[in-house]
């Protein structure tokens, strides 16, 4: 589920899925609750039904008694209205209990209906029996009447048997009387009495027939037999329908009442069960609803949380990433392999990062370029300044002899105009020397420019050999200027351009001659010291020395410590430039009064100077 929620499904769809899932779950809870409620309500209505029909036995009992009493009334009174009432009541009761849903509630009602129907059938049978008997009773009357008439006739004809005949008649009346009593009261004692009367009649008839053999008597005899037969039949019928009432119908009534009682009991029991069920259902609902509700809420919360996490976590991470990217901090892109909107965000972050990195790189490049440009600009400005300074210096120093020569020419013109020719001619020397000086300056400057301009080859130079040769070639000049050159130790072989290196030492010797004069004889001591990566050559003179504050200035172009010396102030500048082209350096070590030492450093490999 979590993977499902976090993978490959668009955010929109993910939210939809969770929403649908929640809805389905909620629907399930609602349906369950509704079912529980429906069950409870069904059970409640059943309970109500049971409750209402549990009282049915009372009505049935009441109606059965009513019918029974009407039946009895009918039996005793024989009114047709009673039978109508019975039928009426029967129909009503039948209608009352013949309802399908009562049948559904309890099948006892079917039994009751059957019994009731049997009861009614029996009642119809009873009516038949009774009408038959009533007919028999009419027959009994009529036969009794004819018998009476016959007997009275017999008494008239047979005076001798008058007494017995009277007795016989009397008995006959007795029978009749008791028979009707019986029919009326249905007391079987009367039957017994009537039967004894019949027995008496039979014996009296027997007595009569001994002395009489008349036809009338025979007729009487046969009438009595048929009378007795009818009587017995009537009794039989009466007993029959009494049986129907007292046994069959009573039993049916009993069955009805019994079953209706049972029905009531059962309905009551069922209603109790229904009640119990309702209580149970309610309790279950009360118990289960919070549980299912809670479970639903928990599941919903979990799903929501998972969804939330699946959305919020990447968003938080991406927000962090974007913030960091925006602040140009280094950060890794979260590795969500998502196909959804957040995935697109991640891609955006990657693009953003790449763009950032590119921008950064470009910025860095541009910064580097700017720095380089600034550097170059500074360098250019410096070199421009240098050039300007150089031009300034050159123009001043080149102009200087020109000014002198022009000035003296002006003076000469003036003197000539005034006729002071000798004075004018004397001044011409000044013009000449000034021009010579200018020429010297120009050639020195050309020398200097050549150092930088002309590319020169480097090769091994045996300084020992070079300096000894130089010493020899300058011999006459050295003697003239009273300068002695001493080479202290065996000088090394260096890498350099021969003519330039020679120029360095020529300039040094020339400078010594010009500026380091010693009254007691000038001396130039040349030696070398080997260092790890370079050779140091020193040239030590015994001149006046140079004040420390001029140690750097002396290498500047046209700088002269003594303004009116022969020098042009270019020599040391040339030396410095040559040393620079050899990747080496030159410096001076000096104290006023104790001579000066010029140091030259040549890198051993001719390429880099390692100090």
């Amino acid at each position, binding site marked *: 589920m979590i993977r499902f929620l976090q993978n490959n499904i668009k955010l929109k769809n993910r939210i939809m899925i969770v929403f649908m899932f929640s809805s389905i779950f909620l629907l399930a809870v609602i349906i369950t609750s509704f079912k529980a409620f429906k069950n409870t309500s069904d059970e409640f209505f059943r309970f109500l039904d049971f409750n209402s029909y549990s009282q049915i036995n009372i009505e049935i009992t009441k109606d059965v008694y009513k019918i029974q009493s009407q039946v009895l009334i009918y039996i005793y009174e024989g009114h047709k209205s009673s039978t109508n009432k019975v039928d009426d009541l029967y129909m009503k009761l039948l209608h009352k209990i013949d309802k399908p849903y009562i049948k559904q509630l309890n099948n006892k009602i079917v039994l009751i209906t059957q019994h009731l129907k049997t009861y009614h059938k029996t009642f119809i049978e009873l009516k038949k029996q009774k009408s038959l008997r009533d007919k028999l009773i009419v027959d009994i009357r009529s036969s009794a009447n004819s018998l009476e008439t016959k007997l009275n006739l017999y008494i008239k004809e047979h005076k001798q048997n008058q007494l017995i005949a009277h007795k016989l008649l009397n008995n006959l009346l007795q029978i009749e009387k008791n028979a009707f009593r019986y029919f009326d009261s249905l007391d079987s004692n009367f039957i017994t009495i009537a039967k004894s009367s019949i027995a008496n009649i039979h014996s009296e008839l027997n007595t009569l027939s001994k002395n009489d053999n008349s036809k009338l008597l025979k007729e009487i005899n046969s009438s009595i037999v048929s009378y007795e037969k009818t009587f017995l039949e009537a009794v039989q019928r009466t007993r029959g329908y009494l049986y129907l009432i007292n046994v069959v119908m009573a039993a049916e009534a009993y069955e009805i009442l019994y079953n209706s009682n049972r029905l009531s009991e059962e309905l009551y029991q069922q209603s109790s069960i229904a009640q119990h069920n309702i209580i149970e259902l309610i309790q279950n609902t009360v118990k289960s609803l919070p549980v299912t509700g809670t479970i639903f809420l928990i599941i919903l919360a979990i799903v929501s949380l998972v969804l939330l996490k699946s959305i919020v976590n990447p968003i938080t991470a991406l927000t962090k990433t974007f913030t960091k990217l925006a602040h140009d901090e280094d950060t890794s892109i979260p590795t969500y392999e998502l196909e959804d909107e957040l995935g697109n965000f991640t891609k955006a972050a990657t693009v953003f990062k790449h763009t950032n990195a590119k921008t950064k790189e470009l910025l860095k490049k541009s910064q580097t370029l700017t720095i380089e440009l600034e550097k170059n600009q500074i360098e250019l400005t410096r070199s421009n300044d240098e050039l300007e300074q150089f031009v300034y210096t050159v123009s001043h120093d080149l102009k200087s002899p020109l000014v002198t020569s022009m000035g003296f020419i002006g003076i000469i013109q003036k003197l000539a105009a005034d006729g002071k020719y000798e004075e004018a001619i004397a001044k011409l020397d000044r013009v000449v020397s000034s021009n010579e000086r200018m020429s010297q300056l120009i050639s020195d400057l050309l020398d200097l420019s050549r150092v930088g301009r002309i590319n020169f080859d480097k090769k091994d130079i045996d300084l020992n050999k070079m300096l000894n040769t130089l010493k020899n070639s300058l011999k006459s000049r050295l003697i003239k200027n009273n300068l002695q050159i001493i080479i202290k130790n065996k000088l090394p072989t260096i890498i350099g351009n021969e003519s330039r290196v020679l120029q360095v030492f020529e300039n040094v010797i020339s400078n010594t001659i010009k500026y380091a004069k010693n009254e007691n004889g000038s001396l130039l001591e040349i030696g070398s010291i080997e260092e790890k990566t370079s050779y140091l050559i020193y040239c030590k003179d015994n001149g006046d020395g140079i004040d420390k504050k001029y140690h750097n200035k002396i290498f500047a172009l046209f700088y002269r410590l003594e*303004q*009116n010396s022969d020098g042009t102030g270019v020599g040391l500048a040339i030396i410095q430039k040559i040393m620079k082209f050899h990747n080496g350096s030159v410096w001076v070590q000096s104290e006023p009064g104790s001579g000066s030492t010029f140091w030259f450093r040549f890198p051993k490999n001719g390429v880099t100077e390692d100090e």
Partner: protein
Amino acid sequence: MNNEREKTILLVEDDDDHAEITEFYIKEYSPEFYVNRLSDGHEALNYLKEIKKLPWLIILDLKIPKHDGHEILKYLKNKKNLKRVPVVIFTTSNSIQDITKAIDAGANSYLVKPINSEDFLENIKTMLSFWKLNQHGYITNGENI
């Protein structure tokens, strides 16, 4: 009121030849001027610090050793008693920086070497007349012309 010999012109110039030429022309113009030559910045400053009598004119080269001409000019124009003395810058430099710097510092004239004698003397005369006016109180040099 002034002794002829006391008409001093101060010449600050390191080049002997240039000094000689300048002196020649001044003497040509008026032999009554005495040219006091100082050959470097150090010498010039020392002289100016203990000056007792003001010169009529100061001719100053800019390119001199040990303190350049600008420094001397600055000193001159910042010193109460000296700033009224006209200063003529006389130098080989015709760079705009030098000219601007000198004029800003209070130089009264700027002449570029080489120059013909007529132009030079014309300027010197003008400067000297400045001094005369100044002596009579018509001109205060520097800020209040």
